[in-house]
């Protein structure tokens, strides 16, 4: 019901907002003095406040990198927790300047929702988790099983597609709240729980005994998670995209939060351009020339962000997998800075 209410509010906002901000988002953000970024409702690893109330997580740091690019200060930012149903409306109506919320880039979203996606920041895929005691080793064995999910956009559809492909049936049990969904799975209401693999890792992390559960090997969908901005604002989209690519390129070049000051003296022309020592890349986007330096100084490089929030030392314990650099067997590949 709460979701319904929020959705209605979002619809009402769209109805009533007499004129949607058509001016460049960069100017709007600069005038306001802070970036407003839409993130998840408390999802550990991606966006959740810590005990001091500071928003932590992978998605939150992506937001901070853009704030640092614009203001030279990653903390000139306001986080707006967005609901899975209203996240796009929040962006469309101008309530937020960018959306960084575990959102899968899809054709129909890009084509019909009035938004543009940036680079993929996390290559995810939908998986299934079962109790080890079930004795199942492949998702294909799950015919006739009950599967718990959240009312995700693509989650239910991917499952339907998967079972249609293997010619089986299943019972879908959909919960609005992640807590209910987890509780029902752990109580045995469903044989399996399905979500993005990163999410399954965090569900498994909160189980009484994580070793009792097994994430099945099949990845039944591609879920490239990407940040998004409103359509038809090229400049703002460039700022978001290149801030993200900067994080990735910095990892490739070995620039870290700790050594970025020394890197200013580096003789590598790529590093010199990225950190604004030579050339004027920042000015081309309407930013300060030291934007690259500011971004790394504020949040570190892509690898650091990943390890800090999602990596093997965290509760989620994810390996880099497809999110490793292209020269290390992964898909992370930033275009050149020149």
């Amino acid at each position, binding site marked *: *019901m709460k*979701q*319904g209410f929020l*959705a*209605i509010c*979002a*619809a009402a906002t*769209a*109805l*009533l*907002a*007499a*004129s*949607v901000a*058509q001016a460049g988002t960069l100017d709007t953000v600069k005038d306001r003095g802070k970036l407003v970024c839409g993130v998840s409702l408390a999802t550990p690893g991606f966006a959740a406040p810590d005990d001091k109330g500071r928003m932590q997580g992978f998605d939150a740091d992506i937001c901070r990198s853009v704030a640092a690019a614009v203001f030279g200060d990653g903390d000139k930012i306001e986080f707006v927790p967005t609901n*899975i*149903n*209203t996240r*796009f*409306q929040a962006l*469309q109506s101008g309530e937020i300047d960018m959306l960084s919320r575990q959102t899968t880039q899809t054709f*129909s*979203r890009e084509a*019909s*929702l*009035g938004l543009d996606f940036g680079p993929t920041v996390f290559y995810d895929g939908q998986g299934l988790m079962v109790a080890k005691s*079930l004795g199942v080793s492949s998702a294909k*064995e*799950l015919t*006739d*099983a*009950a599967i718990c999910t959240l*009312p*995700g*956009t693509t989650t*239910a*559809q991917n*499952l*339907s*597609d998967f*079972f*249609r492909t293997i010619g089986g049936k*299943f*019972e*879908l*049990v*959909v*919960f*609005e*709240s992640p807590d*209910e969904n987890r*509780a*029902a799975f752990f*109580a*045995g*209401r469903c*044989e399996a729980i399905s979500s993005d693999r990163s999410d399954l890792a965090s569900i498994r992390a909160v189980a009484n005994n994580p070793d009792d559960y097994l994430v099945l090997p099949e990845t039944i969908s591609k879920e490239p998670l990407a940040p998004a901005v*409103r*359509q*038809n604002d090229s400049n703002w989209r460039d700022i978001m995209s290149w801030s993200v690519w900067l994080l990735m390129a910095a990892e490739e070049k070995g620039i870290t939060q700790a050594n970025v000051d020394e890197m200013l003296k580096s003789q590598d022309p790529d590093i010199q351009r990225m950190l604004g020592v030579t050339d004027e890349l920042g000015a081309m986007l309407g930013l300060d020339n030291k934007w690259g330096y500011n971004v790394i100084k504020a949040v570190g490089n892509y690898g650091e962000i990943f390890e800090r929030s999602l990596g093997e030392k965290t509760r989620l314990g994810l390996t880099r997998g497809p999110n490793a650099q292209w020269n290390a067997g992964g898909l992370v590949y930033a275009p050149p800075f020149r």
Partner: protein
Amino acid sequence: MSFLNDMRFRAFCYQIGAIGLVVAAAWTMFATASDNLAKQNIATGFGFLARQAGFVISETAIAYQPTDSIGRAILVGIVNTVKVSLLAAILGTVLGLFVGVARMSRNPLLARSALAYVEVLRNVPLLLYLFLWYSLIIMVFPPVKQALNILPGVYLSNSGLVLPAVFLESGAAIFALLICAGIAAAILIRRISQQRRVATGKSNHGMAFACLALVLPPLILWALGLVSFGWDIPQAGRFRLTGGLHVRPEFVALLFGLLLSVSASVAEIVRAGIQAIGPGQWEAAAALGLHRSRVMRLVVLPQALRLIIPPLTNTYLTVFKNSSLAIAIGYPDLVMVSNTVMNQTGQAIETIAIFMGVYLGLSITISLAMNWYNARVALKVR
């Protein structure tokens, strides 16, 4: 300028003005919204209803497959909403009637228990009760692997109740026809017997004949072998029971939550209605030698009904709207299906418009039906 001072003319102008304002406001909203959506390149219109839904719905009262259209999926949601609220309203009313009468009992234990029941139920938000019932079901009952086999073919687990299902193998059409005819005949017989009883003052066996009219035709058909029944017995599959009739825990928890909340409101409405009937009625009926329970059934309740109907309408409207809380515990009602649709298509305004329209339409239907019934039982003043 005398007509400016005419009350009726001025009232007319005010009304026209008010309507004009509302229409203008609605038009402005509509125009701004479509303008904004067009500017943002957001698709509008209801064309998405014909697109393939692509998602599974766990509980379908009408045939549905993921390959069906989104419109069909929404219809499944509507049917689910109506199914659970209708059942909750009927069962809740019956239960509430008993609790309400018990509230008025002279037995202090019974009266106090009924009071406690009402207060406990109506002073806690329904949503919390839904969570409670649902958690109880999935925590208390064993997982489906260790389902309790209560009766042959009947299994109880935290995935719900599974029963053997009966279906007609042949002769479904004629069977349905005869059942309808039987119901019509039963109603007719009952009416005639009632008229005769009023006319003669003697009791007759109308009730028995009416029951016969209901049961006999299908029995004869079956004996003649014109229809045959098949059984769908639940089978243990690898993970869960397949076949048979499934009553899912989400449905049970929602039905329970709703019907208990309805029963608490109905109990209070019934008590108010009974207390509004003057003590003179009780005394007069007692003077005729009627037993207290017959006084209640034959004298007080029929009169109280007139006072009970209007607030009852409110209760029914509430239960219908409260069924949207289903989303919290995973019952696929209209709101849940709409949310999935909204997520898939991104067409929030259209989807919300549809479900608001459905709720409004069905609520008005309930109101009209109740008003019709109210007019029927109201005191006839000629």
